[in-house]
């Protein structure tokens, strides 16, 4: 039983990390209806830029805000060059465009910073908490706990941003109804620009955390694959969905791998979250917190 | 010009339908006779569309009985309904936008097609013969509705009025026993309305199709229907010939109420 909890807690903690990545997708999808496949590339780009600047001798305190600025510019430019000309096109086209964008960003990142892998030390030791190890024989990494805290803080910050600031409210209006938002005079492009910038920020945070966890390297772009089932489960448009979905996916994938894996040869955490999400969707086609799709005739 | 109105082919008793506690229809009962034009009218939100959706199996009423051709049914789904000869049009045009007018009308014939996908893939022998036989039928409908000039145009590019006509064509292609028309004249100009009326009357007259139609515009309906049911807030408030309905005080109130 103790082992079960250990796995569960580990799963929940990884789940938070997944949520963090998923959050970026949700923001953009919610505001502009674009499934931004390039979010993974953005995570990679953000992390690489921060580390690259750091390696040039800047302190993290300078490198991170600088990267933030770069991400905002990237977001705004993307909105202007890629999305605006494609407005009102089918979702799939936009989706494809973001894949093209991800190629571009991946190429750009490597062109600027090279293909070398880099380590990132945020100064948080990724070691099990001694106390827990000693008393409960549970290996819970303090890094994970801190990362979870950061993720939670982020969600809280986003919540405040959405509900308290003018632009945040505009964003919600846009998410609810593009037409309505237009008619009350909210500049749609402006809002989209902001959303992309915010998504860039989310990418930076997840890039830093994941980069510190696994090293800053191209494979960070694969994080998209971890975020997808979270999105399906939680719903593309729901911030709480991303969090809850992440927790469910994280926990279940670990439990499945540990307790189910050995019976089928293991390595199932690649597909298990997807199958889980799929089964879930069969029951609730719009995801956990997604808006119910009403079919009118 | 005499009409051969036949026996009752479709009747409703005590139909009630609700969505999450909101009553859309409350104990509705009326019947439809063969070869007649039966109109369901009422102010917005009166439950007209719900009624139509009940008829062709999109909604399943919680209560009540539907008898179609002497057989009671309640849980019939849309496919079975189509199979048994009920075709319909939609209030907001539901054409297949990516397909041509001809293809849209051909889809209406799908239930009459026997060939399977393997033969389709070969496009040979029976499959081709069948396709051509149905093409001919579709062409007759195109001719009937006078839309020859747009035969191969993708429907998405057509103006609204023509789209409505194509949709009628698609429904007719199924050679239905009962044709349900959901606000066939909504959003049309006077000329288009006249055309549509002519087509509806022609369909009824020449093909003998029973027509159940919903319409918001009372004037048009009164001119072309044989009998009219009036709904208001999900309840039936009148039923009878256009003249009877016109004289009915409840109807006048309901419509005046809307007018305010």
């Amino acid at each position, binding site marked *: 039983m103790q082992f079960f909890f250990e796995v569960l807690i580990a799963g929940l903690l990884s789940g938070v990390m997944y949520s963090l990545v998923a959050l970026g997708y949700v923001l953009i999808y919610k505001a502009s209806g674009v*499934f931004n496949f390039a979010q993974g590339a953005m995570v990679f780009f953000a992390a690489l830029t921060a580390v690259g600047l750091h390696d040039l001798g800047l302190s993290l305190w300078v490198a991170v805000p600088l990267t933030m600025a770069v991400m905002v510019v990237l977001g705004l430019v993307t909105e202007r060059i*890629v999305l605006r*000309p*494609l407005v009102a096109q089918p979702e*799939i*086209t936009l989706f*494809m*465009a973001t*894949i*093209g*964008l*991800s*190629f*571009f960003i991946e*190429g*750009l990142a490597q062109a600027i910073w*090279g*293909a070398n892998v880099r380590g990132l030390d945020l100064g948080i030791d990724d070691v099990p908490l001694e106390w827990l190890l000693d008393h409960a024989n549970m290996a819970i990494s303090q890094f994970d706990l801190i990362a979870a805290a950061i993720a939670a803080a982020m969600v809280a910050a986003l919540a405040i941003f959405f509900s308290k600031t003018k632009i945040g409210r505009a964003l919600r209006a846009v998410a609810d109804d593009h037409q309505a938002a237009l008619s009350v005079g909210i500049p749609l492009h402006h809002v989209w620009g902001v959303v992309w910038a915010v998504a860039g920020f989310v990418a930076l945070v997840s890039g830093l955390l994941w980069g510190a966890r696994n090293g800053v390297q191209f494979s960070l772009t694969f994080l998209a694959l971890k975020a*997808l*089932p979270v999105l399906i489960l939680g719903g593309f448009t729901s911030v709480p969905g991303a969090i809850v979905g992440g927790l469910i996916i994280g926990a279940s994938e670990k439990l499945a791998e540990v307790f189910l894996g050995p019976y089928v040869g293991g*390595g199932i955490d*690649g*597909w298990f979250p*997807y*199958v889980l*999400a*799929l089964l879930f*969707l*069969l029951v609730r*086609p719009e*995801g956990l917190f997604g808006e119910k*799709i009403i079919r009118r*005739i | 010009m005499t009409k051969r109105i036949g026996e009752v082919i479709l009747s409703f008793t005590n139909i009630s339908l609700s969505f999450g506690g909101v009553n859309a229809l409350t104990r509705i009962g009326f019947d439809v006779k063969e070869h007649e034009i039966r109109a369901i009218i009422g102010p917005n939100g009166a439950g007209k569309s719900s009624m139509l959706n009940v008829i062709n199996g999109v909604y399943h009423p919680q209560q009540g009985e539907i008898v179609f051709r002497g057989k009671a049914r309640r849980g019939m789904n*849309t*496919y079975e309904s*189509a199979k048994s000869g009920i*075709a*319909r049009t*939609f209030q907001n045009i*539901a*054409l*297949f936008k*990516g*397909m041509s007018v001809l*293809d849209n009308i*051909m*889809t209406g014939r*799908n*239930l009459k097609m026997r*060939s399977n*996908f393997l033969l*389709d*893939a*070969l*496009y040979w022998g029976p*499959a081709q013969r069948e396709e*051509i036989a149905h*093409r001919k039928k579709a062409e007759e409908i195109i001719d009937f509705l006078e839309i020859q000039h747009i035969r191969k145009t993708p429907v998405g590019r057509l103006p609204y009025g023509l789209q409505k006509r194509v949709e009628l064509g*698609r429904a007719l292609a*199924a050679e239905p026993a009962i044709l349900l028309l959901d606000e066939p004249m909504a959003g049309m100009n006077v000329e288009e309305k006249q055309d549509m009326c002519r087509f509806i009357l022609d369909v009824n007259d020449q093909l003998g199709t029973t027509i159940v139609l919903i319409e918001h515009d009372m004037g048009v309906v009164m001119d072309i229907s044989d009998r009219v049911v009036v709904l208001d807030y999900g309840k039936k408030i009148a039923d009878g010939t256009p003249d009877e309905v016109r004289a009915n005080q409840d109807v006048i109130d309901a419509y005046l109420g809307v007018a305010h």
Partner: protein
Amino acid sequence: MFYREAGQFKATYEEDSRIFPIRQDRIVFAFILAFAFLGVPLLASLGIVSNYTFTAILTPFLIFSLAALGLNILTGYAGQLSLGTAAFMAVGAFASYNFMLRIEGMPILVAFMLGGLCAAAVGIVFGLPSLRIRGFYLAAATLATQFFIVWCLTKVGWFTNYSSSGVISAQKIVILGYTFQSSMSKYLFVLAVVSVMALLAKNMVRSNIGRSWMAIRDMDMAAEVIGFRPIRTKLMAFAVSSFYCGVAGALFAYAYLGTVEPEGFNLDLSFRILFMVIIGGAGSILGSFLGAAFIVLLPIYLNVLLNFTEAATGIDLPSGLSSSVELMVFGSLIIFFLIVEPHGLARLWQIGKEKLRLWPFPH
């Protein structure tokens, strides 16, 4: 401009419903086919077309076209977004391999058919969720197929005949005693298979089954009301699409790579094929070919072009940088094409053709 349609009237429905109703199109198409079947081999025998063209460009182009065609049936015609194409290809490849391996004297074409059918069966199973799920949710859900199938093929040794490397080595293609060994003969083999299957696909999409797919795609509620059964229609689309992908996968293994590992059929491949469909044009048979050509050829030409530019200008980018620039240009071009014509190259072609037909009038 080159169309002379006046006088090409149709006196029967047979004539009117031909695949190429315009005579000029028929001529051009016949020319293309003749060129592909006779001209290219002839040029090759003259030494103008090299082996490289066959094995590295034409053969993969045709195979990817077939896979894109399969996905196009599902996504472009039936409107069901799928990211599991590579998995269906894998099923086709591995199933064909096993049929060949385990049944003595199995004719290769039958093995391909059976491989395709296995893919179709898998397609039906994984298509079941489409009855309830739509759009991106479905797309993401099809990823389950992608990962699960590849996992299964890696995991279950039987599929790879317990090969220690977990790979399969495709048997020789032998038909009626003739071994398709040379690159040209493999090309011709693939070309024949792809041509026939493209024809069948075209026939399907212009008859009732195709209309049922498009109806479901355009307005599923209305499709149901006029009597198309969504279950049947969607699953049929999944089955046919997967069949095509399965055969493409088998060709990929047999006529192209030779030895494949399950990992070869990864998500990357699925994405590439989806790209072909979208860039080429969803809902267009021709689009599948154009898209495949674009995605297969573009990186090669970019690579060649970049090398050439470097050489011509004397600027020598570090190897890593030039590769990165290549990737950036590729990404940008995709975005560019999507912006210029979101409905794909086929639409561009269509517009161009319309322009030629209306020439000298503007479109």
